[in-house]
């Protein structure tokens, strides 16, 4: 449009450039202020807290740090956390793939309701998530008496921790995969099936390569949230040292007992995990973008 004015000789070339840039972006001082405020916000609210974890953890030297993370209680907490994640994550990954395949590849009535229900645990408070299982399996709960008679312990024991963690991390893999699978469409899979590939073969050879980075990110986020889950686990755990304490619960206990350095040492393990998660996310994002742009250009040349 501005080209028209230019062609009509209304604007000299130099003016054109000035008008364009000043109207399509903000003046330099506005830009610097906006960038400055944003960065200040990130530093104050995100960077300084992250730094504090490590500063406090290593305050008394690396020796004290390793002592703190290798006490029997800490090791038991690490073991329980790893066990919980090792059960919760694979289950939610299988569910996530199944749900994403269903929602992204098929149309059926009730699809929107299903999508909303999958997101449900995300909006339920962690405390309420834990409470749900207390109501089901606690001593006064629906199955409480039966479980007690049969000597099965779920609440204040490992199964309760695992269950509430599964609930709290339920939607993460599905949420990550659904948009990616929707974006890649169904044509490639349909071609494979028409050419005689079995359903599983189609999934492993066609779908999986397309979604692998999204899946990777989904798994790592689900894992980080599973290992770090606090509210839900806190309700069902009973805080029994060496038995039902996960890493976050152990950090809480140490903090409340004023063992600040030890608390941050234990907490730093999960903070490391969070940083690794962020790095993998960034890598996955770049890969997904690159993949999307190559498939787009391929289909573009295809139609040519």
């Amino acid at each position, binding site marked *: 449009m501005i080209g028209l004015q230019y062609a009509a000789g209304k604007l000299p070339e130099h003016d054109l450039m000035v008008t364009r840039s000043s109207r399509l972006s903000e003046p330099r001082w506005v830009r610097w202020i906006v960038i400055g405020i944003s960065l200040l916000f990130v530093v104050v609210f995100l960077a300084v807290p992250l730094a504090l974890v490590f500063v406090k953890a290593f305050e008394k030297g690396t020796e004290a740090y390793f002592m703190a993370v290798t006490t029997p209680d800490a090791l038991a907490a690490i073991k329980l956390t790893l066990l919980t994640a090792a059960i919760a994550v694979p289950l939610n990954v299988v569910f996530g793939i199944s749900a994403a395949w269903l929602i992204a590849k098929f149309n059926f009535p009730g699809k929107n309701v299903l999508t909303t229900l999958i997101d449900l645990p995300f909006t339920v408070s962690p405390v309420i998530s834990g409470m749900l299982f207390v109501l089901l399996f606690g001593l006064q709960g629906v199955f409480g008496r039966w479980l007690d008679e049969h000597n099965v312990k779920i609440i204040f024991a490992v199964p309760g921790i695992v269950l509430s963690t599964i609930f709290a991390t339920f939607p993460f893999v599905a949420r990550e995969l659904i948009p990616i699978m929707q974006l890649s469409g169904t044509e490639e899979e349909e071609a494979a099936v028409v050419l005689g590939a079995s359903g599983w073969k189609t999934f492993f050879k066609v779908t999986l390569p397309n979604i692998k980075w999204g899946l990777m990110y989904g798994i790592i*986020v689900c894992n980080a949230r599973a290992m770090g889950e606090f509210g839900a686990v806190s309700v069902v755990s009973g805080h029994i040292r060496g038995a039902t304490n996960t890493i976050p619960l152990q950090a809480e206990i140490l903090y409340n007992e004023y063992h600040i350095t030890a608390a941050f040492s234990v907490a730093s393990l999960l*903070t490391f995990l969070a940083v690794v998660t962020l790095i993998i996310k960034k890598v996955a994002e770049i890969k997904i973008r690159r993949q999307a742009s190559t498939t787009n250009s391929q289909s573009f040349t295809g139609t040519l």
Partner: protein
Amino acid sequence: MALAKAIENIFPQRRKRRVLPGFGLSLGFTVFYLSLIVLTPVSMLFLKTFDLTWAQFYGSITSARVLASFRLSFGTAFAAASVNIIFGVLLAWTLVRYDFPGKRIVDAFVDLPFALPTAVAGITLTTLYAGNGWFGQYLEIFGIRVDYTPLGITVALIFIGLPFVVRTVQPVLEAMELDVEEAAASLGAHRWYIVSRIIFPTIRPAALTGFALAFARTLGEYGSVVFIAGNMPMKTEISTLLIITRLEQYDYPGATAIAVTMLVASFILLLIINVLQARINRKASSV
């Protein structure tokens, strides 16, 4: 069998639509797992409320202590989401439109609150804002007390809610075509006019979705808040903590009443989010 055949004859596209295998399997497994892990426990909570008479239910959620906790939880979540909608949009704008050194790192940083366990965030923020903490000691000079006050709770919730606003606004800004802005500029519109009349309306649904997501998520927050809040009944006791207190006293009906009220609030928010999301998608597809 005959019925299925008949349906297929009436709706031939129904068969064509399902070239891909696995519909039955994935539907069956998804619904089964969803029912087992999510629907059964959640519906049990609602069933549990029927143990209470209406008067008991109403009585327990309108007791002074519960009402104070609702006011605090909703108030601080709203305040934090309001701060986040301003700084979240600003941050998303900075990340999409401007270039500066370290941009990728800042972008990765935005997800930190989501990846960091809430309890770690809790003890970190409390240490930071305590009277002898890195921030607390300077704020004290100005007479600002953050830890053990509603302000502290709000700070923790700002931390938790930030990624939701940034990550919902960012893709919408990225998808915005520059040609509308170019057209407006060529017609003589000033930059501020373009920003307020074209850019703001385009990102408004996304910003509101982010606000609602942050609000919904922080409303039920526990781990990051419980350390910094101080947990004084009537003053700095949030609803989720009160649920735990009631459970520890084996007052299950009392805990259920508070939990159901909060769940209904988050369902309403979820509904609003879905409506907003549908509006964004419609806008995106019409462009």
